[in-house]
């Protein structure tokens, strides 16, 4: 499993891995928002956490279609599925998800504080948003894995994955954003939505890979 994790990390870093695509997309979204919204600094600070979350969510979805498709095209996926008896397929999927998260999504979380400055957010709000992104984005990857596994055989599956996955990520978005707001707006709680967010991630860490493994097993042709 460690070998698979390291292989996928290496692939995401090397040429054509697309680790930076998400970050650049994220940067583009956040950088254009102030131009569109106008020079109202207070408004920017107020919508900042939500915009960061939406930007990160969309950037997460960007690379998901390659999660299994690259392995399918070169035949590796057949061998990963055949290895089910030795390395449980759900665990293989979980490992691939974690590698994808560490390779393509973690850079977004690291870039988020910097982009928070664009939105004129307070330091504590930036910290809270980065923390909620750190805890919440794995959930998006796990849901996305199930979508990617369903659409693995389709030549242009990227859009379909986004459409499939986006409604399912709404709870993650809601609790992520409300926890981020809880840290800055005084009467709102931070801990409760944050804990629900953590629970969502843990729950989907089990459900997502199992669903994806099932889809992959029946999707081979």
């Amino acid at each position, binding site marked *: 499993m460690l070998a698979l994790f390291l292989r996928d990390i290496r692939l995401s870093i090397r040429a054509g891995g697309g680790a930076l695509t998400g970050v650049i997309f994220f940067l583009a979204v956040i950088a254009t928002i102030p131009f569109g919204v106008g020079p109202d600094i207070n408004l920017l600070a107020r919508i900042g956490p939500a915009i960061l979350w939406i930007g990160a969510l969309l950037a997460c979805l960007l690379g998901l279609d390659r999660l299994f498709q690259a392995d399918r095209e070169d035949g590796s996926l057949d061998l990963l599925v*055949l290895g089910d008896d030795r390395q449980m397929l759900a665990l293989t999927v979980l490992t691939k998800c974690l590698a994808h998260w560490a390779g393509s999504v973690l850079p977004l979380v690291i870039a988020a504080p910097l982009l928070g400055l664009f939105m004129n957010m307070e330091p504590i709000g930036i910290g809270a948003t980065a923390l909620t992104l750190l805890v919440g984005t794995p959930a998006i990857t796990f849901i996305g894995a199930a979508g990617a596994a369903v659409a693995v055989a389709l030549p242009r599956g990227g859009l379909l994955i986004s459409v499939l996955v986006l409604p399912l990520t709404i709870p993650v978005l809601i609790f992520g954003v409300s926890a981020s707001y809880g840290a800055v707006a005084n009467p709102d709680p931070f801990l409760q939505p944050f804990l629900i967010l953590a629970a969502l991630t843990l729950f989907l860490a089990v459900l997502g890979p199992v669903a994806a493994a099932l889809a992959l097993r029946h999707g*081979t042709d």
Partner: protein
Amino acid sequence: MRLIAENLGGERGGEAVFSGINFALGKGQALIVTGPNGAGKSTLLRIVAGLLPVAAGRLLVEGGGEDFPSVASACHYLGHQNAMKTALSVAENLRFWRDFSGADFLSAEEALAMVGLDGIGHLPFGYLSTGQRRRAAIAKLLVSRRPLWLLDEPTAGLDKASEERFGRLMREHLDEGGIIIAATHLPLGLEGAQELRMGETR
């Protein structure tokens, strides 16, 4: 161990491709599957590997023991694609499959030497020619130990010398008690192998 197919049928997209295939292979035996394009050779191999469901009849493994309870756990599947990443070096690719598949056999370097590719392990897989890629994929059969080799046109793109070298590797595998099922259009140089002609049995 023995691999037995009884009255095996396969379908693709809801349409029967073949039916009534029977064979029984014991230790050291090989089955060469031949037939025209579209006769279902690759489908047969994928069904045996367990990548496609068995449409009719049954397929069983006897005497695999604890290590190899099912065909999937006992087989190396070499498909049309090589299952190697072009961005990684040949040795990295082989080392990954060695770690992932378990049951270590030869090291990546030894396996590359067996297929005549010693000294190029550091090159990215994407730099290799078609024949070299195929040979690197064949080296993948040697990095972990599996009794059953399922080979789908294994010699496609190989030159004469590599074909002979691969023939020797297959004979060694059979001598050690392995089983080979190969779908091919080209003679593989395996004497005494059973032959299954598809497309004429129907």
